[in-house]
């Protein structure tokens, strides 16, 4: 998945499901201050990310996300992580 596809998919659920104004969805937008996402929304976003991208962030990882740009980068990084094995 390209970065642009990640951005489009993420923005789509932020608008449709989280009811955010598309005009606010800029990489520098801060989750808490600019997008009014609270700690419960952070938890909810983890479930949405799992559903949309089939990756499950750990709560501690999500807490490092400050801006929307961080979020795109985080998803891209998780998608590119090598699959874990039992070895």
């Amino acid at each position: 998945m390209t970065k642009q596809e990640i951005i489009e998919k993420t923005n789509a659920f932020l608008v449709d499901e989280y009811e955010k104004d598309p005009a606010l969805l800029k990489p520098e937008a801060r989750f808490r201050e600019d997008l009014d996402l609270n700690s419960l929304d952070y938890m909810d976003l983890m479930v949405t990310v799992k559903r949309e991208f089939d990756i499950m962030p750990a709560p501690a990882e999500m807490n490092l996300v400050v801006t929307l740009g961080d979020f795109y980068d985080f998803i891209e990084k998780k998608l590119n992580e090598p699959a874990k094995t039992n070895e």
Partner: protein
Amino acid sequence: MRRVVVTGMGIWSCLGQDLQTVTESLKQGRSGIVFDPKRIEYGLQSGLVANVPKPDLKPLLARKFRVSMSEDSEYAYMAAKQAFTQAGITDENLQQTEVGVIFGNDGNEHQIEYYKIMETEHDSLMLGPNALFRAETSSVTMNLNSIFRLKGINLTIGSACASGSHAIGYAKLLIAQGLQDVILVGGACGMGIWGAVAADGLGALSVRNDDPTRASRPFDTNRDGMIYSGGAAALVLEEYEHAKARGATILAELCGYGFSSNGIEDISMPSADAEYIAMKRALADAGLQPSDIDYVNAHATSTVAGDIEEAKALTRLFVQSPSSNLHSPMISSTKSMTGHENWMAGASEAIYSILMMQNNFVAPNINLEHKIDEAKDLNIVSETVYTPINAVLSNSSGMGGTNSALVFRKME
């Protein structure tokens, strides 16, 4: 003791989703019951259910509120919003006045959803952060509390199918004692299939699947069980002087609350003796005699045992006691139209009774063709009667042997 009055009402039921529509449904004796084949396919014996629409909350509430709401909280919000509006209580008033909330509720079915998710995902994070707020028995009151930013008492009363009635009675005690001036009270019950399975397994639900609108027939010899129903009802209870001082329209006085428990081992059996005591206490609290009551909204759910015991209790209180003038008031069970609204019933039936009192009519006990012997001396009204109503008594009973009776009267 301080007097307690009703200054606002709101409803979301199978008879309508506003007071005017519900009043018309009551006058017309319109049934809100339908047949849902999915219930039979799923394995229930009864495919009968009340037709209660889901509210569209998106234009009304921000996502942060909606995501934590159980199904019954959604109904309760719609009812509460109407009740506050009718009472003339604005958002600004709610922030300036200490308003409480007490609702009757005895559980919802969201835990079942979580079970299904856990069985497939094996990861609790997949439930999302709001699962807790939807599944608790107090989901309705916790959600109403945060939406309206209430600061007073916050309490859920769980007492089976008498929950809504006890919630109103308990709020009356708090206001009468001076602990609160205004409390939003009510009852709410979800409509999902899982709420009905246990009652269906008990054999308590009607299987007259081919005749939905005629299936709920309280006090009729051909009754075969209750119909699963729900929604929400809300009332604003207020101390009389407080309501008067702010110029509120007073819809009725809540003048009596009585309660009792059956005191028997059988968890599912009703008791005429105990129901009699609850009604007698409610009348004593109101300072009224049986002969002062113009109308009784019976609990009668259309079950074989329940209707018989209530008929016996009503006969003893209203026909056989010397202070009754040996005369039955008009009686009907609005469950003949609504089905059994469960945790909501005590609150919705208080509203149905007040609407009748305001509009001077008695709603019919529809589907009454052959009255049971135990009710032969009772004036059970099978057609709408237009007549002045000044005082009403509304009965509620629940599994486990809990009874509640409320008395409302017109304010002069």
